[in-house]
């Protein structure tokens, strides 16, 4: 086996890794510059922000939500206006420890109500669906000095759109199949060598597999958080990871399903913190969804596709213990199209500001790279510890 990309030695665990060091004198320098870890958790399916970060003090909340309204006495009180869903117990602890920050009435520029288009806008950083083919997280990779080469990993069997693009990216998901014979691996390697697409995929697959080590893990939220942490905490590991969560589309019977979803998210975040150890203090986790859900409960104990939602920043590097919201209100005249939470903060503003602070990049240039042609929507105070 040859090492085509010596910089990706974080993925090597064989004796070959030692050889790679000789080719990579810039590694240590680059590491020292960016010791921060950035994790993007996408909530696919339009997570209900109003029942995640609950505006319990808004006089219209209880009436709109009727049987879905969450009793403030059961929820985790954040401040005089907002409370956290009771399933987010560990996240609530992080808030109290000043390591979780919630943002409300947030939305991407997308204003229709298709999941797939909404996710496309959220992941590409375009203003309309299918305007761009690459993802903002991949473009962020290109902004980090010396970190262009497979410094990001998707904890999924396939690479999500946000991570697709010019920058090389690894993907890893635990597998329950027995390992194939080495002979086959070696010959596959030779066979794919001249094939640009297969060669690239195969290299990344082999290396991610090496790094994950022999202990194969099951797909549950805590295991997924642990797995992400094992990659991210390595001194020579990737600095950026993306985790996909699905199942947030709650048209019917929402209360039980949302509670289960949030409990999973809570377990994922708690496992990340636990297994990152010291690296947690240098970590920022951003949680966002493609759009929100209707302010009012629908006829089947659920909510339909809406606009504004909530986002979270969690991690040891977050200046937390705050809810940031230019709250638009839930009164009939305050809702967007008389049905949705009106957004007052753009996801591009939030994502670009977080990424810029996380990696000490110029904020204006970061916004232009991640969201070409877009201007900041809404204002934000400093989000992270310096």
């Amino acid at each position, binding site marked *: 086996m040859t090492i085509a990309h010596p910089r990706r030695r974080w993925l090597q665990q064989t004796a070959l890794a030692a050889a790679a060091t000789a080719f990579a004198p810039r590694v240590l320098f680059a590491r020292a510059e960016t010791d921060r870890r950035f994790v993007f958790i996408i909530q696919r*399916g339009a997570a209900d922000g109003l029942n995640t970060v609950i505006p319990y003090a808004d006089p219209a909340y209880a009436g709109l939500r*009727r*049987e879905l309204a969450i009793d403030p006495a059961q929820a985790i009180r954040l401040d005089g206006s907002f409370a956290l869903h009771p399933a987010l117990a560990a996240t609530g602890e992080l808030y109290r420890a000043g390591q979780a920050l919630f943002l409300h009435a947030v939305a991407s520029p997308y204003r*229709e*109500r*298709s*999941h*797939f*288009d909404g996710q496309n806008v959220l992941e590409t950083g375009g203003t309309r*669906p299918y305007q761009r083919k690459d993802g903002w997280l991949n473009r962020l990779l290109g902004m980090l000095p010396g970190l262009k080469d497979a410094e990001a990993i*998707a904890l*999924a*069997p*396939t*690479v999500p*759109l946000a991570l*697709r693009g010019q920058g090389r990216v*690894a*993907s*890893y*998901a635990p*597998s*329950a*199949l*027995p*390992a*194939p*014979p080495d*002979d*086959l*691996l070696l*010959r*596959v390697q030779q*066979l*794919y060598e*001249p*094939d640009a*697409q*297969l060669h690239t*995929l*195969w*290299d*990344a*697959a*082999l290396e*991610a*597999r090496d790094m994950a080590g022999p202990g194969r893990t099951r797909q549950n939220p805590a295991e997924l958080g642990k797995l992400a942490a094992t990659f991210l905490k390595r001194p020579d590991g990737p600095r950026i990871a993306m985790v996909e969560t*699905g*199942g947030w*589309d709650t*048209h*019917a019977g929402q209360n039980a399903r949302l509670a289960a979803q949030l409990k999973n998210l809570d377990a994922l975040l708690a496992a990340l913190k636990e297994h990152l150890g010291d690296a947690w203090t240098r970590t920022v986790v951003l949680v966002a969804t493609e759009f929100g859900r209707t302010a009012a*409960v*629908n*006829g*089947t104990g*659920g909510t*339909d*596709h809406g606009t504004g939602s909530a986002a979270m920043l969690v991690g040891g590097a977050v200046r937390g213990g705050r809810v940031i919201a230019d709250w638009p209100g839930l009164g009939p005249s305050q809702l967007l*199209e008389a049905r949705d939470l009106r957004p007052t903060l753009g996801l591009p503003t939030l994502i670009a500001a977080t990424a810029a602070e996380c990696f000490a990049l110029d904020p204006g240039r970061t916004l232009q790279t991640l969201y070409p042609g877009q201007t900041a929507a809404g204002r934000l105070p400093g989000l992270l510890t310096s």
Partner: protein
Amino acid sequence: MAVHEPAMPGIALNRFGLGTRPDDTAPADGRRWLLEQLGRYEPRPAAWDPLPASGDLVRDTVARQREIRDTPSDQQAPAREALRKAQRQHYLDAIDMRTLSALDAPTPFVERLVHFWANHFAISAENPAVAMLAGSFEADAIRPHVLGRFENMVLAVERHPAMLLFLNQNASIGPGSVAATRATRRNPAQQRGLNENLAREIMELHTLGVRSGYGQEDVTEFARALTGWSVAGLGAPDTPRRGVELDQGTGYAFQAERHEPGPRTVLGRRYGQAGQQQAAAIIRDFARADATARHVATKLARHFVADNPPPAVVERLARAYRDHDGELKPVYQALIASPEAWRPAPAKFKTPWEWLVSALRGLGRTDLQGVRVAALMQQLGQPLWRPGSPAGYDDVAGSWAAPDALMRRVELAGRLASLPDAGMDARQLAPRLLPGQLGEATATALSRAESGRTAMALLLVSPEFLRR
């Protein structure tokens, strides 16, 4: 004009079909081989014989749920568990039926169309009741209609209990309907009403396509028209009652009392029909719309020709659709006639399902002894009938041609090649499976492999075999 096309039999078998079997004779004329399949397709091949009728499955579930409710609450758990297990078994059985009918299908091109349409009208089996009905959904709503008129497939799909349950339509109630008025009288605090999930996905995914010019009010109006479309016992009474039109075979029930009264206006057109005919009329108009012709044409072209389909092919298929008022056969004929579909370089990376089926066919299997398809599809990243979203699985390689997914194919190829009856010689098999398509590098690699098993596994993950 005679054009020498050495790759043509391979393209017909692999790009349009389900992959070559060792006992296949490569067709001399690929186009003719595909066209004549349109004349001898069997909607219900023998592999599907053991499938219970959807109506029976629904009735059985309703009865068992009723029994559970009537038992003391501390004894309900085992009965619930047994029901869930039975529902899951129906799902697993149907996966085997689908796979078996793909392994020795006499009309592999039409079988591929079945898989294509089942993904277009995707249901997702997270919910045990939807999982239980996934096989009958494909057998009842897709298989009989793939060569007919599109609108008939849409109507069968949207009335099937699997779709109604998946997209929550069984629970949607017209706010001004008899049922809602009565419920409000009984319990004013409980609000019951519309669920627009099915309406939106019919417009966005099944027919017109997203961004084709409809607005929120069109979706809501259509959702009102759809109220009353329900499932017997799960949203509607399971015995015929006044105002309930029940289809015993599928378990679909129209419940007039839940239907929102009055005329509806969708996309500027007024629909004054009564009862279930109202939504049916709207769906028929959707099926005839220009946007639908383009949507269907684009998806077919993307599936068979290229991830970014050539505009000329899309235009040709859309025209065939319009000229024949939504008849699907002429659309397939236009596809087969398209020169772009016969370019020798493989443009498509096989999906996990296409790859698994072609690998099993390549190994000559006609049975599943020892192969657990449901588990394998899970490992390959695309569990069957479970895309997790009503949009189905994406049909572009970027979605699944990822490092880990490739590793799993290699792992699985190693396993399949070591099955006891896989002891064929890969060197002789390769040119049969990839007629006119096998490259020299792969042929050399097969001949140099250390063992027959490795050679066989290598063939199944060779660049030529991974693509079509």
